[in-house]
């Protein structure tokens, strides 16, 4: 992909010190608290978090359905926060699609261009182009009530892309689809983003969706952005406990910082071994810290080595593709190891067996909190 490594790209959206307060007095809810984020041109950017974290509020502020209490929202450097939605070159794919039920598929797709006052010939050509892009040419004159959920999703996408927005906002667009269709649409969305070159801002609470589709992810909680990074950054090097917990399964271990060198720290674990752990940017770990280790970044050993954590198997859960070993460490805490089921592997382990846990190279990360 030519886009990677192209250096600094222009910023499409910048939120600067954005806060949004709903209600007033004692009932006031701070949905967003002094949020700063820069979303680059041409990137697939995901706002990830549980419901009520402020991700949809931020999207609505960018779309113009709500106005920030404080702060600026810039589109290519220009403050758009005071503009009504119909004056912003930004389009939205809604969670429930919000297709106009009294119009055909083609009329829905052409609506934005019609409102912009484009000539009819241009609108028709663009509708054809969009139908081709989402592979729906044969449904041009159908009513939106006569097509399936997956097809409605594609029409909603085509409708939002037709006016060539500078930024496309997607508000949990896949949540209403069944599992198989959701998987297909994830790939489809990625393809559309690549083909159109439009900046996508995608809101979801589904961590897997975020990891598979995004160039960068912002993890949000309680009106704050906790961490922004590539899917690999977020998954392998979570900076905070919330991020580590929200995305994937995680083991937490307590320990003491022995020494810090560059972006690594040597940690003496309370469980009785020493590990090298990564440090998040801007953090300066001292004294007691918590490290995280993903279950698949550790290995289970029948004959524990010298630097392995010792424990006994409490439970073995078989998942088909892999097996989860629930291990009670000798020092107290529980630890989960995930191991892929290669042919015959893991069969020698039984509940109650004493085992060792070996934490892999570059597997541990020190949390900020």
């Amino acid at each position, binding site marked *: 992909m030519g886009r990677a490594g192209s250096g600094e790209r222009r910023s499409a959206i910048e939120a600067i010190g954005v806060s949004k307060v709903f209600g007033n007095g004692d009932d006031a809810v701070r949905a967003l608290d002094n949020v700063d984020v820069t979303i680059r041109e041409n990137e697939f950017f995901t706002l990830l978090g549980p419901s009520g974290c402020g991700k949809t509020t931020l999207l609505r502020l960018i779309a*113009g359905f709500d106005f920030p209490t404080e702060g600026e929202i810039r589109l290519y450097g220009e403050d758009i926060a005071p503009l009504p939605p*119909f004056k912003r070159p*930004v*389009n939205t794919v*809604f969670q*429930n699609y*919000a297709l*106009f039920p009294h119009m055909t598929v083609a009329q829905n797709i052409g609506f*934005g261009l019609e*409102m912009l006052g484009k000539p009819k010939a241009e609108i028709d050509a663009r509708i054809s182009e969009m139908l081709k892009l989402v592979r729906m040419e044969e449904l041009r004159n159908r009513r939106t009530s006569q097509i399936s959920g997956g097809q409605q999703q594609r029409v909603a996408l085509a409708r939002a892309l037709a006016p060539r927005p500078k930024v496309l906002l997607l508000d949990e667009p896949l949540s209403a689809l069944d599992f198989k269709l959701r998987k297909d649409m994830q790939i489809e969305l990625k393809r559309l983003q690549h083909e159109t070159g439009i900046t996508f801002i995608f809101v979801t609470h589904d961590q897997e969706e975020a990891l598979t589709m995004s160039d960068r992810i912002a993890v949000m909680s309680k009106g704050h952005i906790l961490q922004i990074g590539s899917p690999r950054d977020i998954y392998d090097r979570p900076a905070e406990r919330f991020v580590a917990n929200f995305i994937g399964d995680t083991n937490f271990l307590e320990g003491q910082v022995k020494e810090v060198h560059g972006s690594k720290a040597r940690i003496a674990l309370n469980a009785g071994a020493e590990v090298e752990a990564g440090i998040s940017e801007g953090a300066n770990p001292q004294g007691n810290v918590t490290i995280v280790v993903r279950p698949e970044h550790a290995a289970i050993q029948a004959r524990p080595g010298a630097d392995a954590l010792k424990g006994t198997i409490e439970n073995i859960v078989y998942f088909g593709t892999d097996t989860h070993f629930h291990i009670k460490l000798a020092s107290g805490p529980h630890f989960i190891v995930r191991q892929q089921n290669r042919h015959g592997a893991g069969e020698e382990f039984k509940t109650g067996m004493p085992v060792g846990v070996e934490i892999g190279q570059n597997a541990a990360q020190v949390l900020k909190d």
Partner: protein
Amino acid sequence: MVSSRTFSVKRQTGFGTIALLCFVLLYVPIATLVAYSFNAGPSIAIWEGFSWRWYIAAWNNQQIVETSVRSFVIASIAAVVATTAATMAALATTRTRPYRGLNFIYGFINQPLMVPEIVTGIALLIFFAIVKIWTGYTGLGYLIVAHTAFCIPFAYLPIRARLENMDLTLERAAADLYATPWMTFRKVTLPLLWPGIIAGLMLAFVVSLDDVVITELVKSGGQDTLPTYMLGQLRRVVTPEINAISSVFLLISIVIVTLFFFLNRKQT
């Protein structure tokens, strides 16, 4: 299947009898009325054979034609004006954040449903008497204004119901796609609201068409509508002619209510 232990009113003693009695009371008189409209004889109680005679008599009765036309003119104008006002009221009370006093406004708009008609009628009678002295105008305008006023809530209710069921994100989507508030209204809200508006229009029309109390009090001499004319006739000789008019009236109402039903079903 419903479990036998759940309460079902259908299984209570006497349910069937009461239900039957209600239907008999509701429909037997109407059926009798319609049947005797085809009576060949001059009585509304003694059957003398089938005939269209009274329908023909009614058709040739100049007064019936005249009062019918007047009724339709009043009902048409009142229904259109009332529905326009009701549409605006419904938009103003649904496309806004809930605020203190909104329930009061609902009550205010629906006042004609709650205030006894005779009170409204007398109030209008007195008020229009004053206006007549001031202006000297004695035309059909008073009846039209009065009908418009009490038709508003009947038009308002189905329109508001339709607006409340409408997905607000549709209007948001239109705004997102560069539609100004006016274009959003014209291209999205109004087309989706049409079934509610038509339903309100028809309901208002029917309600105006068969009003007696307020019309009786407000009308000037020579301004009888069909219902007040029929009421007047009942005081004199009663012939199956009155049955024939009533039957036609019934037919028109059934047609309109059926249309109303189908339009309402289309919304869901």
